[in-house]
């Protein structure tokens, strides 16, 4: 591959465990590591979204619709926030010269719940009420786009992981059963998978959405999106796992496990599926973007996360008007976030795939 410094084995006497080897191979893939670091950053910010965001997702500033981004800048020993005033006309703002207030860290502000549990009011940074801090501007309702981006990440980033967990668990178990038992079981399950895969995903998503009631709370909608996307996503996973199981079940260790009196289900779960993990981890990483984009599509179409709750998908709905795009390009911030996230997952996934390939060094 791109760099070929040999792995030094002399540093330890023992042979390296498979996971350790995997890690060593992964570490040498810079782009994958970059993707990993970006994801770790994004997900940690997601965990502390309420704390990092200066405002809550629903706070409206009725004096400042479509406010352009406000950037704090250094001035002496302080970081200061400039003040803007609105000019007559359609949402035109101008910075007031020499009128700034210092930026404060760990300030009290809107109440939020840390990790969705602990009520808190302290924010990472903030400034005076008349000197608002809209890092990425405001939307058509005067809500802070940056704060909404962070709150939106709670949904958009987690939905990928939760969706993957659900659909891969389903796909692995069903695929394992299908491959292990083969025969009629296999035929029935596989034809069903093909049926699901043959329906264009978007129509299936929308028609499935129609089976749920229109008025649902946002957590219900969240669960619904996960269920819908997993329902479509498990089939392709099941097919691959079934293929791998067909070969793994002929391995002698499966016979050995049976000869010790292990039950079929436990053989699938404890002996066959762990042997598919190196593939599954890679496939999972590469499939997360599909779930993130799935949520975006649903929310963009207005059948996903509902206002005022923020998600990257429904934030983009505001950006569908070409007029808005021309005049207020900061509304596209969520698409940049999606772009970075999806790219990071793909970088990491590619690196994981190379690292999982034992023939590469």
């Amino acid at each position, binding site marked *: 591959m791109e760099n070929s410094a040999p792995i030094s084995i002399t540093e330890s006497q023992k042979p390296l465990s498979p996971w350790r080897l995997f890690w060593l191979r992964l570490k040498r893939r810079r782009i994958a590591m970059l993707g990993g670091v970006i994801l770790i950053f994004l997900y940690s910010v997601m965990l502390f979204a309420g704390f990092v965001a200066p405002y809550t997702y629903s706070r409206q500033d009725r004096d400042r619709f479509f406010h352009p981004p406000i950037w704090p800048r250094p001035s002496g020993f302080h970081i200061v926030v400039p003040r803007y005033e609105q000019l007559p006309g359609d949402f035109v703002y101008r910075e007031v010269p020499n009128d700034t207030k210092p930026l404060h860290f760990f300030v009290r502000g809107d109440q939020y719940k840390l990790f969705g549990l602990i009520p808190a009011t302290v924010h990472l940074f903030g400034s005076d009420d008349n000197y608002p801090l809209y890092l990425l501007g405001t939307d058509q309702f005067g809500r802070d786009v940056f704060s909404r981006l962070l709150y939106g990440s709670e949904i958009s980033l987690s939905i990928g992981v939760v969706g993957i967990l659900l659909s891969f668990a389903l796909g692995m178990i069903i695929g394992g059963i299908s491959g292990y038992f083969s025969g009629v079981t296999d035929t029935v399950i596989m034809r069903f998978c093909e049926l699901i895969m043959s329906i264009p995903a978007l129509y299936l998503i929308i028609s499935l959405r129609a089976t749920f009631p229109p008025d649902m709370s946002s957590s219900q909608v969240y669960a619904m999106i996960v269920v819908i996307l997993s329902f479509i996503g498990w089939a392709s996973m099941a097919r691959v796992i079934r293929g791998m199981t067909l070969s793994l079940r002929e391995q002698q260790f499966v016979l050995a496990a049976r*000869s010790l009196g292990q039950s079929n289900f436990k053989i699938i779960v404890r002996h066959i599926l762990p042997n598919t993990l190196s593939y599954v981890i890679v496939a999972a990483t590469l499939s997360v973007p599909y779930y993130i984009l799935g949520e975006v599509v649903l929310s963009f179409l207005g059948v996903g996360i509902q206002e005022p709750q923020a998600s990257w998908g429904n934030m983009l709905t505001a950006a569908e008007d070409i007029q808005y795009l021309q005049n207020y390009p900061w509304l596209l911030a969520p698409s940049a976030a999606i772009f970075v996230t999806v790219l990071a997952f793909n970088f990491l996934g590619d690196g994981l795939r190379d690292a999982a390939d034992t023939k590469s060094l």
Partner: protein
Amino acid sequence: MNLLEIKNLKMDFGKNAEALRAIDDVSFTIGTGETVCLVGESGCGKTVTALSIARLVPTPPANYVGGEILLNGRDTLKMSVRELQQIRGGVVSYVFQDPGASLNPVFRIGNQIKESLKLHKPEKANDAEVIRLLKLVGIPAPESRIKNYPFEMSGGMQQRVMIAMALASEPKLLVADEPTTALDVTIQAQILDLLSELKQRLGMAILLITHNLGIVGDMADRVAVMYAGQIVELSPARELLRRPLHPYTRALMNSVPKLRGDADRLSAIPGNVPRIGNFPPGCRFAPRCPIARPECSEKIPELLEVEPGRFVRCPYAKELNIN
């Protein structure tokens, strides 16, 4: 009562018109603490016979059409899945040919042994018991070995781990299916010594499958020789090796290269093993048999007791013996 009693076992692969008879009328017994060797060429049905004891051959394609397999007096062919899971590992344990493939590559060996303990002796599923078992099978420094992955061990060590797993539940019968084929000769000897020693110590019976007649002499109390799905000779080991009766057994023993002697070619049995489903009528060895007569190809000979404890499937064995 014998520990294991296989009576007239008949098994097909496939059904009806496509049925291929893999085991044909096999009967033998294993007493408590006895070592029986099952000898024969590849594909003669040794392994499927052994796997049948705990019903490990998947049905379908296998199809048991007759006979009984009495383990402790109970027919395993009539057992429910749950009962079979109790029997497997509990009464009869298996050790297979390739230890590297028998261990799951992604788990530490300590956990794999613990898993077999969990199945049959859940109260003893702890590290101490795992270490005791590893000591029992002669693995040095077992405390540090339990954290090893299978690939970190040599073939001999892996086979010892497999034996430890098989012994975890103190089975009455250990079925060893060519346990030393994948190992080199010195390790082979060590593993066989280990098996005999464990047999003495734990009082279990062993069914040893092999095609190595040297092993038979070392280990077996009795030997069953299989050919094309049938037992052709069943006899105490010592007598069989000294004086084989069936022409096939004789030919087999002649094929073993001798340490002394001036033959520069190995002597081989002429012809090929008949393919399953394409067995000759009558005696299945007849086409390759040096003493075959025309009537040999007409009727399958019976397995007859020609001397006390010696069964041979050849009506002319006696005459051959005299010559």
